């Protein structure tokens, strides 16, 4: 997993979910971050779309309920784009 990508995602998630970046780990998810409700989920998805200049499919959005899943989806999309 790309460390720089992880840092960017972490910093965006921390801003949008309004928690400190250090409290965000790969295991952070809608289950264990209290502010990660459906409104914040949409905000997070849009923040990532703005940041990486891409659009997620509805299926991907449903899958992105934890940091590790977000990284998976992003990694996949970014590699797909650059190839």
């Amino acid at each position, binding site marked *: 997993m790309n460390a720089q990508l992880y840092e960017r995602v972490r910093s965006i998630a921390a*801003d949008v979910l309004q928690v400190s970046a250090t409290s965000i780990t790969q295991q952070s998810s809608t289950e264990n971050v209290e502010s990660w409700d459906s409104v914040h989920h949409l*905000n997070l998805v849009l923040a990532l779309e703005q940041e990486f200049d891409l659009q997620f499919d509805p299926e991907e959005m449903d899958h992105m309920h934890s940091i590790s899943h977000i990284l998976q989806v992003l990694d996949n999309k970014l590699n797909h784009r650059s190839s």
Partner: protein
Amino acid sequence: MKRGHPQRRGPDIVNLSEIKSEIDRLIASGEASAAISLLAELWSQDKSASAASFLVSHYEQQRPHLSVAPHKLAILRSFTVEPMVPLLRAAAFVAGIDLSVHLSEFNAYVQEIVDPQSALYRFAPDSVVLAVQTRDIAPELFRDFSGLSSEQVSVAVERVISDYRAWISNFRRHSRANLVVHNLEQPTHPARGLFEAQSPGNQTFAIQQINRGLRDIAAEQSGVYVLDYDALVARYGRLQWHDERKWLTVRLPISAPNLNHLVEEWMRFLHPLTGRVAKALVVDLDNTIWGGVIGEDGMSGIRLGSEYPGAAFQEVQRALLDLHRRGILLAIASKNNADDAMEALTKHPGMLLKPQHFACMRINWGDKAQSLREIARELNIGIDSLAFLDDNPIERRAVRTQAREVMVLDLPHEPGEFARIIREFPAFERLSLSAEDLQRGSYYQAQREREQLEQSITSREDFYRSLNQEVEIAGLTKATLPRIAQLTNKTNQFNLTTRRYTEQQISELVKLPGWHCFSIQVKDRFGDNGLVGVALTHHHEGIYEIDTLLMSCRVIGRTVETAFLSFLADHARKLKARKIQGWFLPTRKNAPARNFYSEHGFQALQENGEGTLWELDLAQSSLACPEWVRLHVVNGDRA
């Protein structure tokens, strides 16, 4: 994000995260004002959803150190706007507005409007946005148009217009808030394809008819404005604007890069609605309104004309002319030899702007913050009403640090972008244009002539006599209401109480027993100054209270204020009042009005923490209209 060409912001990421940690460090060490200006800097570099969340949470923490005006905005909507809320609140904080936002339930805008007990009215908004999409309010016209007969089309158009009319008048019964109504967008692909453009009574026309109906409704009601959503979507491109999959899954029709564009459009309304407007734009000359440096390149060397590369600067001048015609004053602050600059201003064939378009000029080698202060003084407006346009980032930074109240426009490197930046600057937006706005430039020219006369005449009274002033006082009319409300919102200096009113509030006040509203128009030998003063009064049991008394600085110091007060005294006597009372509520700006009551024989009656209540005993008073002012009184129609 940069418009048009969304870019991956990878290279900036270090810089942005450095700014964020610097902000946290400044806050931790108690340097609030440095942290606050860095927050604005962050926003100018990164208008993303994550930066917005960062800004909002940090501004909220810093609230005690901010000078921001609270404003309550309700959004009634037929689609998801939640992701726009942090973006909007961040943009508002940067503009000095502390916005609280209430969202209606999904598609429950009709219930919220018609039910006087609804959450909307309990929220007591200052402003309301009604954001409904064509596909929600007129699905048959948007989706199924090709299956409709022309009768069915007319029925649908009429139904939508009459729904809007009913909702808006219903809303007005329950709320005085400003109402901004999105108009309806056209479909990206018309149902009948190419044939659409060949046929009368087409889909485009049907939606245009609804939009025209909305414009009529807004014109009928005070404080109701149309947001041209169709033009907004078209400006950014219909295909780019939409994200159909997000519409279908989470009811968000707008793609991520365009969320800010809707937010910016809302901000364009919030600036004039909250009085955050620039009254004058001060411009640099070299490389700003023409290309090159006049002192070095000379008349034949500067770039200004209808062809590349001078055309970009003509576009800048065209944008400035449009502001001038909107009533925004233009002024010059340039480091130049005055003779060189004046030669270009008067003689260059490519100049669209002429010296008479500028109300004030400072062409010298002094620093610009100082020039800006002098310009504000000469134009009689606060320095926080000035905007500043300069291609040189060093000058912009100097003004930002030395004259922090000035609104500075950021210009990119490419001159071809300058005109767009000027046209999109929200502090130049106006929601109504009065005759005075359209004439303002020439008022200032007449003012210069008046001042020359004043200097050539030695006695004050001779000067007053020589002005041939005529004052017309009128009750409230529909025609004067917008200008009257505008004056209550923007007059800061000669204003005894600085109470702000919307058009709606004024027209309701004068319907109450004992309340009156008067305006004055002043003419003199140099021209018509237009409607320049307002009084709101309230008579109750022998006491005639002046709730509001204000006058534009253009006419102050020429005894017109005494004439106006003498008229109010006569009016009070007619109503059998014994006394006139009025508060003077001091602000940072209204020192010119401080001695007004004492100079006219009023006695201080009481003081509280906010100001002083003055009283005039009408039986003792000899207040009269100065002999050199001719006074006419006309009746209004009580709008």
